[in-house]
Each structure stands twice: as structure tokens, then as C-alpha cells.
């Protein structure tokens, strides 16, 4: 048989549980208790409204550039929902709902987006990494973390997020390959939101799916409807269970959409049509999840209104607290902090020089 096809050990599946029309596959429906469902709903709503508020704060010049996440909440929240607190989440920069779920505060997000390094502070009880901007680079950190977790013989896992654009980076390839070779407990969650700034998914790679890239590494790959929280939850649950059981890594491609701008410096009208956005708006994960909960009888119009009000208040208070906090954080000497466990002599000298310069006579433009 000199010319024959090579058998691939595993197929790439597509998973959808609750579709855009609200049709539910009862067999695949994950068992999630009501309390958890409501908490997920609350977080999704909070993230959505907060994202909207951030956008308006940015337009008012009260915070700087940031990457909105509206439309992608199911993809990232559904995934982290299966983690334990002492698992590790390694974010990219568009996982607001997931970060809030994992305990990041609204204030921290506000501070960060207002240009205060303090906004990147992570509470001691959480393991997660801060957001990572160099596209794809964080994938390797998750691989290393998973490695350390396995080395310590825990059954903890690492879950890392990245976009469709990130799959073109060398670090994506190297990370998935290491995860395959060392059979590491890591879950790779790709939020395929169809765009990398102005670059469409179709031109990011010629492979039919991103999920099938798993075949290059001998790891499990699955594509899910990323606007279907149930499907994401189910796929992530499976992947995490496999990882905990020592069965290795999974690549989950969540097919979703960025409803808003890439960042507030971006103008998406340059590269995509309103029709496209509208079509995806009809698949809004928040509405879909809300309908599901209503259907299950655990969410009413009234409850929704109540949640909206609560969330609105929470955001308003956070904004006020954060703006107070910013005033307290004015100390410029923070410039020199947190770079080293112990500040080297040469930097101490520069810090002294800085203090001297600051206290020198007229420096109007600085105290403005």
C-alpha cells in the first residue's frame, strides 16, 4: 500500500447546546445548579454593563484606551466557571467577565484603565496572572504553570485565553506543542471573535477551523458555539476534567464575536459592515442565556430589572471609589517600585536624583 492515507487518532468536534433560536439539546445540557446559573448571569450582566460604562468613561477622557469585551462574555465566563479558585487563569486582555468571576474588582479594572499600575495588583489569595498584551505570549506561561502544578503532584490546572489572531503567533505553536509532548494539565481557550483588529478570521489562517490546529500537537481539539454559555461550560468542563485526570491538554475554539471596538482607539467601520455586527447582535450571549434562564423559570422580568439596578449601583459605587483612590495614588515615587525584590544601588541613586529634581524650584508643567 505505497500511497495511503494516514489515520488521524482523533476527530475535531463541534459543540452547540443552546442555539440562537433558543433550541436546547437536552441530552447535552450540562447540569448546573440554580445558584450557580444565577451567579453566572449576574456576572455576565455586570461585565456587560461595566464594559458599557468603561466605554463612556473613556469617551469622557476619564480613563484611557481599553479593549471592550461585550459579546464575548459567554466564551470566557463559561470557561472559567468550571475552574476551582486555586486553579490558575491566564488572561489575554478581553476577558472582563472571567476576571470579575475570578474576583478581580471593578476598582482594579478602573485604576488600570486610568493608567495606574496599582490596577494590576492581584490579591494574595488568587493565583491568576495579570492581563497580557503581547499577543500569544501568555500561552507559554500557562504551559509553565501547568507544568509546575503537575510537578507538585496537585490536580490543579491552568486555563489560558487568547484570540483568533494569537493562533498565528509562534508562541501559540510552541506552547501547544510543549503541552502535547509533556501532557500538561492546561486548557487553551481561543476566543475566536472573527477579528484581530481589522484582520478577519478568514485571512488569519487558511485552516477551516482553529480547533483543528490541535491535530498538529496530538492534543484534543473542539470547536464550540462561543455565544452559548452552556456549550462553553460543557466543553471546558470536559477539558478541565481530562486535565485533572492527567489526560493532557485541550484546545477549545469558542466561535464568538466582538460587538464593540477593538480598543477605544479603533474605528471598526473601516473594516466591517453594520450588517455583520447586527447579525451577531442577534446572537448576543447575554440575551441567549437570559432566555434560557427565563425558560427554566429561574429568571423573571422583575428579577432582571432588579439585577440591572443592583449592577448599576455597584458600578456607580466602584467608579466613585476608584476616583477617590486615584487621588491617593498620586505619589510619583511609585515609579521605582516593584521592579526588583531589592532595589539595586544604581536605581537607588536615580531615585534620589528624581527626588532632588522634583523638589527643585519651578517645575510648573509637572505639578499640573
Amino acid at each position, binding site marked *: 500500500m505505497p500511497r495511503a492515507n494516514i489515520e488521524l487518532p482523533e476527530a475535531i468536534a463541534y459543540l452547540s447546546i443552546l442555539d440562537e433560536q433558543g433550541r436546547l439539546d437536552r441530552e447535552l445540557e450540562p447540569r448546573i445548579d440554580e445558584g450557580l446559573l444565577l451567579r453566572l448571569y449576574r456576572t455576565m450582566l455586570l461585565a456587560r454593563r461595566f464594559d458599557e460604562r468603561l466605554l463612556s468613561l473613556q469617551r469622557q477622557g476619564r480613563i*484611557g*484606551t*481599553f479593549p471592550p469585551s461585550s459579546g464575548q462574555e459567554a466564551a470566557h465566563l463559561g470557561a472559567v466557571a468550571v475552574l476551582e479558585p486555586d486553579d490558575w487563569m491566564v488572561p489575554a486582555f478581553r476577558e472582563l467577565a472571567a476576571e470579575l468571576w475570578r474576583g478581580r474588582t471593578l476598582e482594579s479594572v478602573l485604576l*488600570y484603565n*486610568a*493608567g*495606574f*499600575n496599582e*490596577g494590576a495588583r492581584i490579591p494574595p489569595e488568587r493565583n491568576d496572572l495579570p492581563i497580557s*498584551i*503581547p*499577543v*500569544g505570549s501568555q500561552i507559554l506561561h500557562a504551559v509553565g504553570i501547568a507544568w509546575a502544578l503537575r510537578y507538585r503532584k496537585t490536580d490543579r490546572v491552568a486555563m489560558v485565553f487568547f484570540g483568533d*489572531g*494569537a493562533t*498565528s*503567533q*509562534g508562541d501559540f505553536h510552541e506552547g501547544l506543542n510543549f503541552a502535547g509532548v509533556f501532557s500538561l494539565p492546561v486548557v487553551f481557550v481561543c476566543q475566536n471573535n472573527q477579528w*484581530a*483588529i*481589522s*484582520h478577519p478570521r478568514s*485571512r*488569519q*489562517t487558511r485552516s477551516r477551523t482553529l480547533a483543528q490546529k490541535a491535530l498538529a500537537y496530538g492534543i484534543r481539539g473542539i470547536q464550540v458555539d462561543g455565544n452559548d454559555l452552556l456549550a462553553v461550560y460543557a466543553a471546558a468542563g470536559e477539558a478541565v476534567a481530562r486535565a485533572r485526570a492527567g489526560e493532557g491538554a485541550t484546545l477549545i475554539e469558542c466561535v464568538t464575536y466582538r460587538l464593540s471596538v477593538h*480598543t477605544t*482607539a*479603533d474605528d471598526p467601520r*473601516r*473594516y466591517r459592515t453594520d450588517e455583520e455586527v447586527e447579525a451577531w447582535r442577534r446572537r448576543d450571549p447575554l440575551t441567549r442565556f437570559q432566555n434560557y434562564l427565563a425558560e427554566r423559570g429561574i429568571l423573571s422580568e422583575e428579577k432582571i430589572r432588579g439585577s440591572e439596578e443592583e449592577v448599576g449601583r455597584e458600578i456607580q459605587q466602584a467608579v466613585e471609589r476608584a476616583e477617590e483612590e*486615584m487621588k491617593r*495614588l498620586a505619589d*510619583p515615587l*511609585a*515609579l*521605582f517600585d516593584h*521592579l526588583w525584590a531589592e532595589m539595586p544601588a*544604581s*536605581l537607588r541613586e*536615580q*531615585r534620589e536624583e*528624581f527626588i532632588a*529634581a522634583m523638589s*527643585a524650584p*519651578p*517645575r510648573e*508643567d*509637572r505639578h499640573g
Partner: protein
Amino acid sequence: MAKRNLVQALNLALRQEMERDDRVIVLGEDVGRDGGVFRVTEGLIERFGEERVVDTPLAESAIVGASIGMAVAGLRPVCEIQFDGFTYYAMHQIESHAARLRWRSQGRHEVPLVVRAPYGGGVRALEHHSESREALWAHLPGLKTVIPSGPRNARALLVSAIRDPDPVMFFEPKALYRAFREEVPEAEETLPLGRSRVAREGTDLTLVAYGAMLRPTLEAAEELKRSRGAEAEVIDLLTISPLDDTLLVASARKTGRVAVVHEAPRSFGPGAEIVARLVEKAFYHLEAPVARVTGYDVIIPLFSRERYYLPDVPRIVQAAQRLLEAP
């Protein structure tokens, strides 16, 4: 002559070079339909089509590595890295190939490649979007590192960089993209790479700067004139490496007092080389230690504190005053 800002001046250079020479092609992330995240490549795809203005997948090493191949095969790729903070992804390609292929092939192949990237602070950007790491590239043999300081010289230098037979790292001071306008003629202008210029003549001290630091340095010179009647000579490097020290050295010999200004962290930064050159070539003329007014040896902070990191007029003036007061 039309008044243009830096973005428009660079756009003019690209457009005209593309018209003049069909070997010139532009590639990078979002350079096509989006016109580049800073709009430097705006309108090019409409004019030259997708073959010559290429939106690439998100992969800096590939952008540069493929450009090296194109250059070797006779094209003149101008690739854009979206921010200088992402140039490191391609460092192995640049160190090991772009800067070496002429040498590695004993002159048979050349790499007429331009890597454009915005650099520096001052635009309230995200983390990794405000660095100034030109010293890394300046140290690599076989590579030119060019940093313009205004629309007119930017346009002329970019034209020269594109025509240069060797690879050029072309760092654009993003703080200046829309900061001011200058007359930039439609008619062709070039400026030789590897030459500094005197941006202001003076006799009492020398201030060396480049890129976005030139403006505060010139302002500081005016301030020194106002406050103490001192005339500072200001040298604008334009090309960081290979460093042409002729003007520097001549100026230092004349004034005996020199400060160098840059955004990059101080230690092992570009200023160190300037000090070293002056010591080598103007030592006996120096009347005071050469001063470095620079970024600190830290990561440039997120934007709320960025102004404390960046050298500014008061810091430059203070350093100059100390120089002038040196015995």
C-alpha cells in the same frame, strides 16, 4: 508646499516611493484596510492594491522573516511592527539574518528592508506601547537605526531608508505623529542616513537629542537663553547607528559642555555611547562631565505617571544649568 504632520509626511514618503518603484511593498498588521493603527499607511491599499499593501496575520517574526526573503529576492519591503514593544518577536530574524545576509553570502545577497515601528511615550497608551529600546538595535552590526524628529526629516529619511541597500530599523516618535505640522514639499527630498544635524547653533553648551526628545530639548535651549543668556547648540542625531560623531565631537570641542537627552533607560542606553565617543574624541576639551538626561532604569509606568518618567524641559534645563555652573 503643504503643511503636514508626521503621519502625513510618512504617508507621503511611502506613497511616492511606491509610485516610483514597484519593488516597494508595504506589509504588516492592519496596514491595509485599516490604514495602520496610526494611519501612516492610510489610502495606500486603495491606490496600490492588495498585492502591494498587505494585511498580514498576527506574527511579527513572520512579517520580518518573510520580508527578508522578499528583500533577498529583489523587492523592497517596508514592514510595520505595530509598536516597538513587539519588535523583540523578530529579533532573531533581524540579528541573525537581516543584518547578516550580505555578510553571510559574501555580498551576493542584500537585504534592502525597512522595519518601521512607532516608539516612545507620551500618548497615554497601554503597557508595552511606550518603550524606547533603540539601544538594542543600535548595538547590532549590519543594521541601521534611524529616528526622525519631525515631519520633514521623517519623510526624507524614510525615502532614503527605503532606497538604502541595507536593512534599516526606522523608529517613529509616536508622540509626534500629530503633534505639529511642517512644510513638507511634494517634490522629492532625501536625507543621507548616518548623518546628524545641528538643529540649533550655540556656543556655550551642547545638547544632544533625537526623536521626540528634540522638541523639549530645543525648548530647553530657548529657556536657557531667556533665563541666563546661554546659547545651547542642539544636535539632532537622526541616525542612532551607525553613529556619526562628527558634529557631536565638533560641537563638544567648541562648547566643552554636553548633555545628552533620551527617553530610553539610562544604563546601557544610547547616551552611554555618546559619552564614550566624546571621551574618545573630545576628552581634552570637556570642561564638565557629560550629563545624561534620560528615562530611569525602570519600566515606563502606565500613563498616569508617565510624565514623571520622560525627560522634560525642566529636567533638561536643570542638567544644563549644572553643566554651565561646573568650574
